[in-house]
């Protein structure tokens, strides 16, 4: 294949994957929702879980986006320095977005800044949103795709606390955010908490935490214990599916952190809805790919 053919091929694969992510929830989310549905005892909450599962079946069978709000398309790129198409990847991701928007079809969610006019393509200034990370010297790339509706984007926030507010202040920020804003974010939620050194590092870490596969724990034993403790605390509040009240509030709580300035403790919170549409795909330098998040899926 020529370089142009390769580029077209990657657009094709990614476009199909974005389409798939809008229609089928990943394995980790499906497994957790199944578990929470079994735990539920309240009648109204059970009606909602039944509806959710019925919807997922229908979305797959009819090949339609599971939720009408397919978000602003976001990509998290973790690349080796030698991945041969790194320089073209921005353009490839943009074209894949346009392609999936037509094929799925996705909702037109890119409203151009300042002019406040819907672009009609899901592409606009800095959209699709892309975060770049060079992780090693390899020639592989991992691309995580995330589609978040407005409802679960709304609670996201970060704050920089004075050090004496400490972890206690951080926990209050997390709990207040979830109780004040979580109901409309379509619980049961995935909650990402970032402990950083400024507002944006905390926000970035919280997003990374939220995107971590459900069922994984932070490698640091204290962070892992913190995840369990926050999860138990939030579940005791019992927002239930859609905030109707139920056995649980969250599917998972993940924490990520970094060393921070001694005078500050940054805290970020990012929330994902139950229809947590994230998907991970890995390419090698020949553009052979493997879908990590949806086992057995075909494009």
């Amino acid at each position, binding site marked *: 294949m020529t370089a142009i053919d390769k580029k077209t091929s990657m657009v094709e694969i990614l476009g199909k994957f974005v389409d798939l992510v809008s229609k089928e929830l990943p394995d980790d989310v499906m497994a957790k929702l199944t578990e929470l549905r079994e735990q539920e005892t309240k009648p109204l909450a059970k009606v909602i879980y039944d509806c959710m599962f019925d*919807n997922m079946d229908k979305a797959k069978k009819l090949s339609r*986006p599971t939720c*009408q709000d397919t978000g602003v398309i976001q990509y998290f790129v973790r690349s080796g320095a030698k991945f041969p198409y790194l320089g073209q990847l921005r353009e490839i991701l943009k074209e894949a977005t346009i392609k999936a928007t037509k094929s799925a079809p996705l909702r037109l969610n890119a409203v151009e800044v300042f002019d406040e006019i819907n672009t009609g393509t899901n592409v606009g200034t800095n959209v699709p949103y892309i975060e770049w990370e060079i992780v090693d010297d390899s020639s592989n790339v991992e691309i995580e795709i995330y589609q978040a509706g407005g409802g679960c984007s709304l609670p996201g926030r970060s704050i920089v606390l004075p050090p004496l507010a400490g972890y206690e202040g951080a926990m209050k920020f997390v709990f207040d955010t979830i*109780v004040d804003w979580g109901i409309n974010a379509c619980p049961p939620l995935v909650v990402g908490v970032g402990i950083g050194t400024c507002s944006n590092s905390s926000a970035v870490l919280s997003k990374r935490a939220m995107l971590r596969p459900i069922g994984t724990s932070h490698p640091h034993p204290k962070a892992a214990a*913190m995840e369990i403790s926050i999860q138990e605390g939030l579940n005791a509040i*019992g927002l239930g599916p859609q*905030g109707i009240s139920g056995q649980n509030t969250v599917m998972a709580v993940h924490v990520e952190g970094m060393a921070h300035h001694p005078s500050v403790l940054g805290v970020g919170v990012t929330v994902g*809805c139950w229809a947590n549409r994230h998907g991970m795909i890995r390419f090698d330098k020949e553009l052979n790919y493997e879908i990590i998040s949806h086992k057995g899926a075909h494009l």
Partner: protein
Amino acid sequence: MKKILTTPIADEDIKSLRVGDIVYLNGTLVTCRDEGHRRVIAEGIMPELPMDRIAIFHAGPIVKDVEGGWEMVSIGPTTSMRMERYEKEFLAKTGVKLVIGKGGMGAKTAEGCKESVAVHAVFPGGCGVIAAEQVEKIVDKEWPEFGMPEAFWVLKVKEFGPLIISIDTEGNNLFETNKVTFHERKEKALKSTSKEIVEMIAKS
């Protein structure tokens, strides 16, 4: 047996509903969210479709253009609270009987429901395909200039639901009541989580 409301919805049917009841809708449902509410109340412009005794849906759908019309691909509720500012006046002005959305609405809307004999109900969020399947036909589209999510889509629906009544005509408000409970539980849960974490960190 399913309890079904049919448009035009009679006041008696609305008055008989209580929070927590599950109902379904037959008839005319229109999508109306932020821009639609602003146009009707702030700008005083009404759509051509008479809205008396029909239902509105706080929703922005995915619609596909097909020959001779449109096809509903996916439609689900958006956060109703965003319309809190205008909903009371909207109910009084339009005669809409059923407001469908996501999450609850506030005290002002609850007043409006009492005064205008209307209810608010929630459709489970994120279940856009189920809802789309219950849309028999997209009858019309008004205000296309708002774009796909905000346009005023006129739908004919059949057994549209489940709709869980969240505000009734007696002033009961399911989500506001839940919120009080959630805040009480939060105080307790936060205390114990904070204590655990602060003690654990201090051990280093």
